[in-house]
């Protein structure tokens, strides 16, 4: 998993835990209010319950959550990693262009090769309709909109193959618009990019 995806996954588990607790509490209160014998329970002060449960508690919890989200967002702002690749979305395939090295430029289709452990800035553009670049185990998604240039930083902590798929409905074969990100050891990647290691050609 990439660091960006890992941070989001952590946030998900915290939110899922909190949400489950709140859901259980509210449902327990609702069932208590309907099914508990009214003679055997104490009536609450309605205003206290409404303002406490409906206003004060969510305001505090949501403010904390918002602050955390803003921090995570700021961390995700793309920096200027050394390695930058161009990804062009078409109906229904991905065109990959690597930086030119030694006069020759490597290109690829539906497979993006990156060095493990190094952030990569992906420049996204579309040739036709709106697509969305999404490799769940590396980072969140970014829409690819005609007439706009978009950027997203991805990073794989370990070598491996990571499945990506277009996430914005883009027509008949949207479901088949799959992309693989292949993370290889950094030195292997450098040699491959320079055209020195023929064995590392895309499979």
């Amino acid at each position, binding site marked *: 998993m990439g660091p960006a*995806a890992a941070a*989001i996954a952590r*946030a*998900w588990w915290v*939110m899922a835990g909190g949400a489950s607790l709140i*859901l259980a509490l*509210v*449902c327990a209160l*609702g069932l*208590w*209010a*309907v099914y508990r014998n*009214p003679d055997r*329970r104490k*009536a*609450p002060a*309605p*205003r206290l*319950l409404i*303002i*406490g*449960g*409906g206003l004060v508690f*969510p*305001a505090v919890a*949501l403010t904390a*959550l*918002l602050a*955390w*989200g*803003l921090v995570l*967002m700021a961390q995700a*702002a793309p920096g200027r990693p050394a390695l930058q690749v161009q990804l062009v979305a078409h*109906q229904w395939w991905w065109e990959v262009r690597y930086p030119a090295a030694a006069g020759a430029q490597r290109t690829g289709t539906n497979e993006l090769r990156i060095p493990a452990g190094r952030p990569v800035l992906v420049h996204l553009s579309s040739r*036709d*309709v*709106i697509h*969305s670049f*999404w490799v*769940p185990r590396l*980072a*969140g*998604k*970014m*829409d690819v*909109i*005609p*007439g706009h240039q*978009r950027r997203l930083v991805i990073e794989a902590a370990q070598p491996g193959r990571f*499945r990506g*798929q*277009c996430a*914005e*409905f*883009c*027509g*008949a*074969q*949207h*479901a088949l618009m799959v992309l693989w990100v292949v993370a290889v050891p950094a030195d292997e990647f450098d040699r491959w990019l320079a055209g020195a290691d023929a064995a590392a050609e895309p499979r």
Partner: protein
Amino acid sequence: VTKAGDLHEQLERAWRTPPGWRALSGVNHSSIGLRFIVTGFVFFLLAGVLAMLLRAQLATPGGEVLDAAQYNAAFTLHGTVMMFFFAVPIMEGFAVYLVPKMLGARDLVFPRLSAFGYWCYVLGGTLLLSSLLVGTPPDAGWFMYTPLSSTPYSGAGADFWLLGVTFAEISAVAAAIELIVTILRARAPGMSLQKMPAFAWYVLVTAIMIVFAFPPLILGSILLEVERAFGLPFFDPARGGDPLLWQHLFWLFGHPEVYIIFLPAAGIVSTIVPTFARRPLDGYELVVLAVIGTGFLSFGLWVHHMFTTGLPLVSLGFFAAASMAVAIPSGIQVFAWIATLWNGRPVRGVPLLFVLGFLFIFVLGGLTGVMLAFVPFDWQAHDSHFVVAHLHYVLFGGMVFPLFAGLYYWLPLVAGRVSEASGRVVFWLVFVGFNLTFLPMHLTGLLGMPRRVYTYDDYVGWGLLNLVSTVGGFVTAIGVAAFLVDLLAHLRYGRKAQPDVWQAGTLEWSLPHPVPSYNFAAQAAVDARDPLWADPGLPRRLAGGEGFLGRAQGERREMLLTSAVEARPQLVLVLPGNTWVPLVAALCVGLFFLGFLLKAWWLASAGAAASLLVFLAWAWTNGAPATAADDTEAAPGQRLPHHYATDSPPGRDGLAWTLAADGALYSSLVFAFLFLWTVRPGWLPEEALGGGLASLAAAACLLASSLAAWAGARAAQRGQAARRWLAWGAAIGLGLAWCGLETAAVFGSGVAARDHAYGALVHALWVAALLHVALAILMAAFLLARCVSGHAGPSRPGEIRIVVLFWHYAVALGLVNLVLLRGLPWLGAAA
């Protein structure tokens, strides 16, 4: 025959909807409301069948139930039909049926408008679904993102969508205006805003939201249809447009839409909970504030559908905060319901069971909504099946469960029978089926399954979860089928209901079950929020004709209007009876849409011209000549003026709210201009329309015409015929002069409509202002004719006020155009 029986028969004769095929001419709110509900439910079943097809296709990896094209059309139509042809109309149906009864009124204030809205809805839905018959269903998603929905990528299906949905939206806006004016003007005397039933507050806020939220999508649809039909590039990035403009316009509508669907449903919950708790709603004021707050906040959330479009982080942060804040008013309502039940002595029943199911599902959907407002999480979950699960929890849980609760709760009013415990079976099937479908789907999304994919491979490991969802989907469908069986059994075999079967406190339960067409034999004066709990003898007295207008006047339909805040009796509204005009008008508008669809411009023009004539004929039947009685006895010893003899007839409120909707439409167009100008560097061409003397002359024409209209209105109200002709003649002449000047400016500038979005918008703004001024001129001519016929004049001031208000409004639009197209670019160039 008793006196009460006599009164009942006479009122019934005046108010009933005729039997047989002539029922189509009925305008009574009970008939129209039920038609909305039944038609909405039919659309629910149709879209549900589509959902079952989708689930069948996804049940296994590589499913072969549908191919890609069929799947894409099926999910597009499922979403479109559920949102535009089920959720909004059926909730409006509830409001149309219930609001007058809850307010103690006999009908809505514009019965022909509600009938017209219903026919627009039916025809719009027919138009959309006819795409299936000709084999070109829309398949670009219910959100219709450009460029996928634009010409090179989408065929006629997109036209079916744009025209059908826009047609139906006319209906939504019409019903909204009608509900607002009814709630503000037709409450029982003494029912001040603070004593209004909670449901009416929910409907009021929802209707106001519709007035402002639907126009952005209507405008977007018009622009997209014009782009597709005539090649004006509003959204084409190669010619100065922007696909993001569509997304902004769509979600400016689309997010309020979620609350437009949810709030009436929450209003049902806020009605049922007090009845079953046997105590008034706790925290009524807080709930009302929460509903109003939701209405406001819902307009500041739309960008949370666009968190992954690469917008600046600052704006994402703002919209994340707003999206989380909207959870607070929902929390207030949830705890108000719990507090009411907790403090009360709840009795059990099927409606309350559905409310409890709603509570669980809606709270869960709200919590996942908060997660999605956490922007980095949204970057992962957006457009995955997690969002599919979330939105169904909010919409199915938030709206369909209260809908079932409401159907079981209010059915006795319609059928005169009361439900048996079989509703519990329906509840458990739908509740278990729903959760089985959508709870696992959160996980499917987190495992990386995007939305709107017609197939997936085995190796990705989404098979088992999808299979569970499909099984759950079919259990839900069986639950809905069980509801239909239960409903038919109820209508046929249900136990006869006693009056006020639930011992509720609101006025609709003072009516006999089933409800008579005129609702109240006499209109009540109330002084409590739950009038029946405060005064159990009220129903008997009303049935005996004790109260306002407790009399029959032949075929005449009368009802009381009151002041907006305190609900003091103000005037007696004479309503139109059954008429074919609304149906004919909707058919003529339908011809216009059909002509557009077929690109048969002669047909579209004929439809537009016919519509105009029908609307003029409709308007001509309003009011009463100067010879009619100015006032009438509304209650023993209390005389009130008829609506046509005052300067504040409901039509004036109706116009004001129509102008609010129209203003929102026009503002959306202005937004489009400013948006493209702002986001696209160098967007404004060098040869933009200049300022100069011509624009000053145009502005002078507009301002002078307003002055002349004002003078003409004064003369008409004072009965000064010569001055009236002179002043209105001048106003019309000046209006025509402005039309000529503007047209010359647009054509003289050489700005082309098809080359660039700037030129396209110049033409759009010009046409918009021209249409308004032309309509104002037509209305002025109409008014002069009405003055001659005696329907407008010193004792009939209403229509004069209406025409002059529209005139000033049209002038304001013309002036905005001048500032936007000439003033701002000139300032920009000068700076």
